[in-house]
């Protein structure tokens, strides 16, 4: 199903400046794989050994995937996936 993925400023050099990408997938992992397919430079920036890097946060419709099933989190129709750096706040 179609999903909108929001790309943060720090990663836009790897997406040719695009702030949003339309891909399809039924879990967060599938969606990210589709994103990496379209923009190969993103894979090593946000993942390491198949997992998300420790300062990368991913949200599905505003909810942190670590409170859900991580990369296995199901994506509902029309959901929005947001990638953000985890190094803000405090």
């Amino acid at each position, binding site marked *: 199903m179609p999903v909108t993925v929001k790309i943060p400023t720090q990663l836009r*050099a790897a997406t040719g400046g695009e702030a949003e990408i339309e891909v399809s997938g039924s879990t967060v992992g599938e969606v990210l794989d589709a994103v990496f397919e379209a923009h190969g430079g993103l894979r090593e920036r946000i993942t390491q050994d198949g997992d998300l890097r420790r300062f990368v946060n991913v949200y599905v419709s505003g909810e942190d995937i670590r409170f859900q099933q991580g990369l296995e989190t199901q994506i509902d129709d029309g959901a929005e996936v947001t990638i953000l750096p985890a190094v803000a706040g*405090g």
Partner: protein
Amino acid sequence: MAIENLKCKECGATYDLGAHFACENCFGPLEVAYDYSDLDPAETKRKIQAGSQGIWRYADFLPFEGRPGDPLEPGLTPLLRADRLAERLGTEAEIWIKNDAANPTHSFKDRVVAVAVAKAQELGFETVACASTGNLANAVAAHAAAAGLESYVFVPANLEEQKLLATGVYGTNLVGVRGNYDDVNRLCTQLAETRPWAFVNVNLRPYYAEGSKTLAYETAEQLGWELPDRVVCPIASGSLFTKVGRGFQEWLDIGLVEGEQPVFNGAQAEGCSPVATAFAEGWDVCKPQRPDTIAKSLAIGDPADGPYAVEQARRTGGGIDSVTDAEIRDAISLLAETTGIFTETAGGVTVGVLKKLAERGELAAGERVVVYITGEGLKTLDATRDRFRMHEIDPVLSSFESEFTQEVTV
């Protein structure tokens, strides 16, 4: 001495000294890098001692191209020996309280905000903003007002009333977000991408965080240019905890003080203890939590510097403990009754952990322990409600005497 660039703490990539906070290669946090190679310790010491009566006396260690200024200069807060507290805890360690409630808006956040607002002006911003659990909101609103800048302050809508009132009074745009702090923080991270604002703890975070080093410098200076043996420090995002460590390390490196890093003990509330849990479990990441504690100023469920705080506690032979809400309330009373210092719930967390360390026998006789009290009790009055009884009497002697008969005759 000069600031050089922003450097990623994870991969070492460097960036120009602009409003950036996350590495484009790995998303790691950026930190200000300095060149201290031409600093002469003796001359630096004289310069500090002849400096202002606040944090700008340490300007050589802060992230500015020019000389920073701020009409609400924080810092040089009291460092007090707390012998009666030590006695009540049954420890022969030397306990010192660094009372950082004695700042312009009554918390340590004045230090980081003074630095961030001065940096925002140096970078040409006209609006400052923040995601806050309360103390930061007070400080950003006040320092923006003092500097004549516009401000937007984002907080969880259910914050303590005292903290909301002490923010709104400065004429800021106060935004209560229906969510917890981590929701507020996510929203601000997104807003920082589109608004031309200096979010002090998002896009200006590398500079902002440097302000916490001044707590380390002051501690060393007030102890007669010596380091404590141990510090007990609250952990929310972990930024204060790690920057106090960085401050001590810089002074060790350039020879302003001798010895080694103190043992670092971190303090969290049990209802929001992702860093204490990571320490206990031996993880190098923090699993986020949904906060549920009266210590709202420490209620960050997804702490940005959590992994570095864990590393620092391990490296220095310290630890990270958590205390319950009941222990927090007891510790607020304990500190007040033995030192005359009334702290907010975060200070209750810190003193609560100090008490645990004493009970476990981890504090050695003669050991010098500095406890960081980061905020003022008047901001979280609910935490002290129903803990004592007021004697209500009529305005006549007999009424007083009948109320206190027992005390007089016993």
